[in-house]
């Protein structure tokens, strides 16, 4: 009998599907770090206060130059608002995609200028408003900054554990509203600590400005801890900054 399967061959792969993304992310991280740019991947659900947090952190930064890439499904409202405050910002629209990935950022960086006079810069990349998908993709960040807000409720670490597990810095925003809400801070922090015992958590309010000086200082300390070094470009695309 003719064996229709005789020419089939099984090939063991064990290949991670996100390897390519992660390789590009690692390259971005090394490259930007070598030039004194701390990359911050800002994640949080829609309306959590991502853009407000960037504005307030920038206001409180003392030494580093702020740069922003705004990720949105559509519109450039936030970028216009940031530029209006004198902050250097540019826009990525994903037109439907629910997260940013490393190739998108790599492409965007090719079109950005990094001719700052300060010793260090902090590049805030505001991810798409979503607590699920952005946590799964590295985009070349040194710091994952999660914005969680008291109006979302205290169960979020239990419902979206990956975002809380991977965060390096958590800003708990809108804390000025705490007197009017049933937010259970102890339950929230119990979940955060189980997932991520050492993560820095700062209570913030865009209304009163509380917490943002501490967040800015924490990020600037990270930026100044970057080791600058000669960086060889082994990739084909050209960057427009000086070496």
């Amino acid at each position, binding site marked *: 009998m003719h064996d229709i399967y005789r020419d089939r061959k099984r*090939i063991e792969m064990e290949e991670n599907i996100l390897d390519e993304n992660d390789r590009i992310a690692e390259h971005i991280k090394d490259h930007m770090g070598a030039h004194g740019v701390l990359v911050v991947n800002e994640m949080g659900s829609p309306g959590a206060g991502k853009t407000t947090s960037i504005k307030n952190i920038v206001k409180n930064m003392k030494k580093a130059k702020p740069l922003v890439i705004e990720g949105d499904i559509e519109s450039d409202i936030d970028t216009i608002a940031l530029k209006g405050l004198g902050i250097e910002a540019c826009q990525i629209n994903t037109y439907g995609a629910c997260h940013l990935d490393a190739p998108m950022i790599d492409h965007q960086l090719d079109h950005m200028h990094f001719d700052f006079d300060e010793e260090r810069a902090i590049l805030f990349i505001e991810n798409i408003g979503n607590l699920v998908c952005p946590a799964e993709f590295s985009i070349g960040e040194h710091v994952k900054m999660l914005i969680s807000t008291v109006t979302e409720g205290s169960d979020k670490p239990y419902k979206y554990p990956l975002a809380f597990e991977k965060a390096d810095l958590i800003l708990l925003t809108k804390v000025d509203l705490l007197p009017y809400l049933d937010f259970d801070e102890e339950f929230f922090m119990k979940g955060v600590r189980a997932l991520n015992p050492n993560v820095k958590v700062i209570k913030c309010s865009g209304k009163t400005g509380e917490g943002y000086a501490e967040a800015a200082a924490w990020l600037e300390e990270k930026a100044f801890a970057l080791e600058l070094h000669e960086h060889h470009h082994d990739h084909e695309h050209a960057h427009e900054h000086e070496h």
Partner: protein
Amino acid sequence: MHEFPITEQIVKICSKRCGDEGGSGVTKLKLVCGERTGYVPESVQMYFDIISVDTPCEGAAVEIETVRSKMRCPACGKLFYRKPLSFECPDCGTDGEPTEIGKEFYIEYIEVE
């Protein structure tokens, strides 16, 4: 919806490997997908059927093994499935810590002809 770019990547990886091995087409591929990756197997399958058209992966059978997520109790060492809105160990009540079990996302093997 974020299964779309991921499935493009799967088709790209499998098609390339098929070519590298001198095959003319992929007849089957096996994916391992942890539940904490957030990828929905049914969506991967749906996009696969669309994206694989006119590639060496067209018509391939897709088998997806899902892996349930487990936490580890730092006090007693037990590996356990968590209950909703809780990280507590069912044996001793201590809050568990995350593990890599349930974060898998890889192509285990392909079959080519």
